[in-house]
């Protein structure tokens, strides 16, 4: 049915202090859909996300093995251009991290890194990102204001817009709404439904309910292991594994 954007093959990861690890993960991420990785804390979901944009390079990783194919290319290969990779695969973090600059500068930061100098291009990308993140109307008149002046929900949407301004293909989201009120959360989730038409989205939700609301495709992680994965709401209505069922039913977590 849908094309597969990312193929994760036999991925195993161990940190040098022995914490969170991944054990032999095999998963296909479909393009232009929202894939949800859910499960209790310590399951390896964040670690997996960080592998997808090679952000794990910043941490003390002991061993990593397996392959991650993005459009067929193994991004774990040492010869990979990680800079280009990170532009293709953007990330939104759990806490909104706005850079200590104006709203405009936050949005154009990624392009500046890439060497973009043309103001017109940057303005275009900025506007597009803000519209896709459903933030344009709220900030279009105050782009020069410091980004820190925005509310929490607005800041997080700014972070999303910032990623979008960079024109990625994949958007990774690590509990993006965990600090937000329900209205802001709703706005983000609505934006995602629009975004998935053109972007591949991989989301770590902050609750099973959010997972159920947003998933086109879901994968359940438990202590580094991929327990099961299925299309749509399958995992939440008819899980095959007992462990999945127990977690979804709230018997542990």
């Amino acid at each position, binding site marked *: 049915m849908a094309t597969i954007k990312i193929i994760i093959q036999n991925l195993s990861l161990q940190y040098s202090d022995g914490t969170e690890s991944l054990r032999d993960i095999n998963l296909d991420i479909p393009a232009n859909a929202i894939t949800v990785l859910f499960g209790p804390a310590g399951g390896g979901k964040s670690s997996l996300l960080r592998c997808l944009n090679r952000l794990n390079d910043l941490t003390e990783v002991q061993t990593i093995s397996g392959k991650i194919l993005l459009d067929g290319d193994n991004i774990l290969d040492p010869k990979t*251009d990680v*800079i*280009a990779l990170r532009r293709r695969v953007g990330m939104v973090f759990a806490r909104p991290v706005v850079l200590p600059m104006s709203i405009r500068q936050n949005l154009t930061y990624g392009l500046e890194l890439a*060497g973009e100098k043309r103001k017109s291009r940057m303005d275009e990308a900025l506007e597009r990102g803000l519209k896709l993140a459903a933030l344009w109307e709220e900030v279009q008149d105050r782009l020069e204001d410091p980004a820190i002046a925005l509310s929490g929900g607005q800041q997080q949407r700014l972070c999303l817009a910032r990623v979008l301004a960079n024109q990625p293909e994949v958007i990774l989201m690590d509990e993006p709404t965990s600090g937000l009120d329900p209205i802001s959360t709703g706005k983000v989730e609505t934006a995602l439904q629009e975004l998935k038409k053109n972007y591949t989205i991989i989301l770590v939700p902050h609750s099973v309910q959010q997972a159920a609301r947003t998933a086109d495709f879901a994968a359940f992680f438990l202590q580094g292991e991929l327990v099961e994965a299925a299309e749509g709401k399958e995992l939440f209505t008819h899980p095959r594994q007992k462990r999945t069922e127990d977690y979804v039913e709230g018997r542990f977590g």
Partner: protein
Amino acid sequence: MNKTLNRRETIISAIIKTCGYSAVLFVILIFFFLLREGLPALFEVKLGALLATRWYPIENHFGILPLITGSLIVTMGAMLVAIPFGIGTAVFLSEIAPRWMREILKPLVELLGGLPSVVLGFLGILVLSPFLRVFLDLPTGLTALAGALLLGGISIPTTVSIAEDALDSVPQGYREGALALGATRWQTIWRVTLPAACSGVLTALMLGIGRTIGETMAVMMVTGNAPVLAIKLASIFHPVRTMTATIAAEMGEVAKGSTHYHVLFLIGLVLFIISLGVNIIASSVIFKSKKRAERVLS
């Protein structure tokens, strides 16, 4: 575009890395130079002669013991001043003074730390030593005592700073716990807070000692510059000469390459090693505060 970015990144990283290692390079360089110019002294003057008690280079007497005792007596005297007053002030600022007072007084003490030592030496000559001469009925005010008082004063800002940080970082819970058990404020300070800040206070002491041994100008100006062996208690009322003052006073007049020249470098080497030792001990003491690095270097 990526290739040039990459190349620039590597060059810049290399430059930064080299600069990072520079500190080690300089320490080695300094040690090497001191060794180079100081070691010949060990050959030109026998070890026994170096450890003699007479320092009179004009007649080839290179006994450095009077200089060492001079440094020691001034340092110890300075510590006797700096410790009680420094820690006392720190306790006052941290535990007793109201907040607004602390905000005013703490910068004031730090201001003293910013004064160049030559200014304090200057005041020592014009104000302190005449005062001591009159007050204690001495033949001259330029004595080890003057040096000790002055150096104590110079060390106080550093001591106060570090000790106050140490006291500040004792968790409030300790104090509250003691008070809840019925202790008075004084008992809390004396028996709970102060001991808890022990390692920080010790660090303050060690760094104070390190700075005092290395002080040059102020001592040179007020201690009288007489290289006399200072081992009696009464010696504190006599002029002395420290190692640092010796180098400063005599270096300008020596011929390069002469024995005197080499011996002065040897003294410098000794000072280098002493300060190395003191600083390593001070830095390995357990107290680690965020601002400690700032204080070490102030």
